């Protein structure tokens, strides 16, 4: 019995009340809904699987997850990027158990079938002719996901009917360019991804990064005070969040661009050589949005997000350095999410800058980061708060959206629809509105 068959679109429809900007807490509590999400969203849409700089040379690979399926992201012998199902076509064993490496191919640990690094079958346990007589030998190739790249960002999907990655990203590309294509060479990862398990439904992450302005003051106020020079950092943060734009980029992609107060210098947290490159590379509109953004936080539906900001742990004496973290929110259970988190930096940055950007990322957005450590506890508290029999009959509120959703900015420099505040809740809620569309079969190529 596929879970799919147990639920009808009509069961799901009412779980998100678009008009009133609320959603049922059931969507965070129900293992059946979680299985359905894996099937209706994660096997059908584009998923981020890694960055090209993780696999620079032919044969380089890293192992990843697409929903709950293990895959290998590998650059094959011909240089083509492949996403291979990490499951032998004989009896299903993982063919690779490492986190990263370089290999000409993958030898299954069980019976030794050999696949090259494009996923093609090269040898079975015995005389291959026996198979060839009875079967199409290449039906034994590792299952390959469809790969799409946007610059060095690598996405994949199992869905042959999916629209192109370009169309899928749509308006978001203008913003992705600010984050990942602001210098001629683009970005590189600073190390293997951090992974940790937050004890909450996976959607809380994409919503929070979709993005949640108000939590920043409550949750991150003290660390903001401690790491920004000046005595009223928290209040300045609040003011900035309230006044800064949030953007619904379309297709469920959402985020915020928090603008620094007047007193702050532009391009805070970058070294001069990089700033020069930005100015040469981006459009004036992009520069306008970026140059005073002390926080850029967004979600690419369903489970890819980024967060960027300047940080210093010696605020009195040391200028901040901007870190950029990107992450996947992996839905490992209805109430457990494995966060995969990478730090990126401009390829052209100085060695000093790269090392400092990495340290600032580690110290802020990570399992032990001074920002993430508190978010995860808040999310845990939500999971514990909603999963009772009474709790799950109630709703979660995005009702601030009722005050904001008709107030789209008319003079915003970027594409999509922008709203005048990081407190608007419109864009956070938009993640669930898109979720509802997938779950009820309203997206024709993802049914």
């Amino acid at each position, binding site marked *: 019995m596929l879970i799919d068959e147990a639920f009808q679109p009509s069961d799901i429809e009412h779980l998100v009340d678009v008009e009133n900007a609320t959603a049922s807490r059931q969507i965070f509590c129900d293992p059946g809904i979680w299985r359905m999400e894996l099937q209706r969203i994660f096997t059908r849409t584009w998923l981020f699987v890694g960055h090209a*700089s*993780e696999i620079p040379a032919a044969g*380089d690979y*890293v192992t990843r997850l697409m929903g709950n399926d293990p895959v290998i992201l590998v650059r094959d012998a011909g240089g083509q990027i492949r996403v291979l199902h990490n499951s032998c076509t004989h009896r299903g064993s993982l063919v*690779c*158990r*490492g*986190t*990263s*490496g*370089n*290999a000409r191919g993958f030898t299954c640990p069980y019976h030794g079938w050999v696949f090259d690094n494009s996923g093609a079958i090269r040898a079975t346990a015995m005389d291959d002719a026996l198979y060839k007589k009875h079967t199409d030998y290449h039906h034994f190739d590792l299952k390959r996901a469809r790969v799409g790249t946007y610059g060095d960002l690598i996405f994949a999907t199992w869905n042959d009917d999916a629209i192109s990655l370009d169309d899928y990203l749509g308006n978001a590309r203008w913003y992705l360019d600010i984050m990942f294509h602001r210098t001629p060479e683009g970005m*590189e*990862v*600073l*190390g*293997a*991804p*951090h*992974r*940790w*398990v*937050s*004890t*909450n439904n996976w959607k809380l992450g994409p919503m929070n990064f979709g993005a949640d302005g108000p939590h920043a003051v*409550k*949750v991150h106020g*003290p*660390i903001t005070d*401690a*790491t920004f020079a000046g005595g009223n950092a928290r209040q300045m943060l609040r003011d900035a969040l309230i006044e800064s734009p949030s953007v619904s980029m379309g297709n469920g992609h959402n985020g915020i661009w928090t603008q620094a107060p007047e007193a702050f210098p532009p391009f805070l947290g970058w070294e001069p050589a990089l700033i020069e490159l930005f100015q040469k590379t981006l459009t004036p509109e992009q520069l306008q949005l970026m140059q005073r953004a002390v926080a850029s936080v967004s979600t690419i539906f369903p489970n890819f997000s980024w967060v960027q900001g300047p940080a210093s*742990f*010696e605020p009195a004496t040391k200028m901040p350095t901007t870190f950029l973290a990107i992450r996947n929110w992996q839905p490992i259970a209805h109430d457990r999410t*494995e966060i995969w988190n990478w*730090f990126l930096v401009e390829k052209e940055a100085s060695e000093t800058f*790269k090392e400092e950007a*990495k*340290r600032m990322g*580690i*110290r802020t957005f*990570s*399992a*032990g980061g*001074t920002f*993430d*450590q*508190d*978010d*995860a*506890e*808040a*999310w*845990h*508290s939500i999971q*514990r708060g909603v999963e009772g029999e009474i709790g799950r009959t109630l709703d979660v509120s995005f009702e601030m959206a009722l005050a904001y959703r008709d107030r789209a900015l008319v003079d915003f420099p970027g594409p999509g629809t922008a709203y005048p505040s990081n407190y608007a809740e419109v864009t956070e809620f938009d993640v669930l509105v898109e979720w509802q569309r997938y779950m009820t079969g309203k997206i024709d190529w993802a049914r």
Partner: protein
Amino acid sequence: MNDSEPRVGDADYRAICEFLNDEAELLAERDYPQWLSLLAEDMQYLVPVPEFFEHGTARSVGRGNAYFDDDYPSLKVRSELLSDPTLTTAENPPSLLCYFVSNIRPRRTANADEFTVTSNLLIYRIRASEPTPYLLAGKRHDLLRAVAGGYKLARREIRILQASIQGPNLSFIP
């Protein structure tokens, strides 16, 4: 391995064991100001991310990674936040911590004032909102510097074993 380096004298052997036990007590009891006083100002503090490689052939992604990469100033910031439960969401109420230190192995170095010490650390942690313990295990590689009346911790690397942290946060100093 530092087996070729000479063993320390009995006095240092005992004193180093006691230093590490006293230091662990400060961390476990969240006496962070006192703990900071045990650190050298050039302190380096690292908790690398484990990676797993097949066939004995390593290829790290990027420049490697760490769950913690701190120095004295950043440890000071962490300490201040963790000392006051109103300053973090994660530690309000504070989680309870037990630091099990064992397998202490001090060694002399070329520098008469400095000792390398390896030890094992098992942290058992209970959060207010979660009844089951989180266990973090690691192998510590410390550098101790003899100073008047004791030692200072000048470098610590904790090689933890768990690549994917099976809990929501590490809102403490391991």
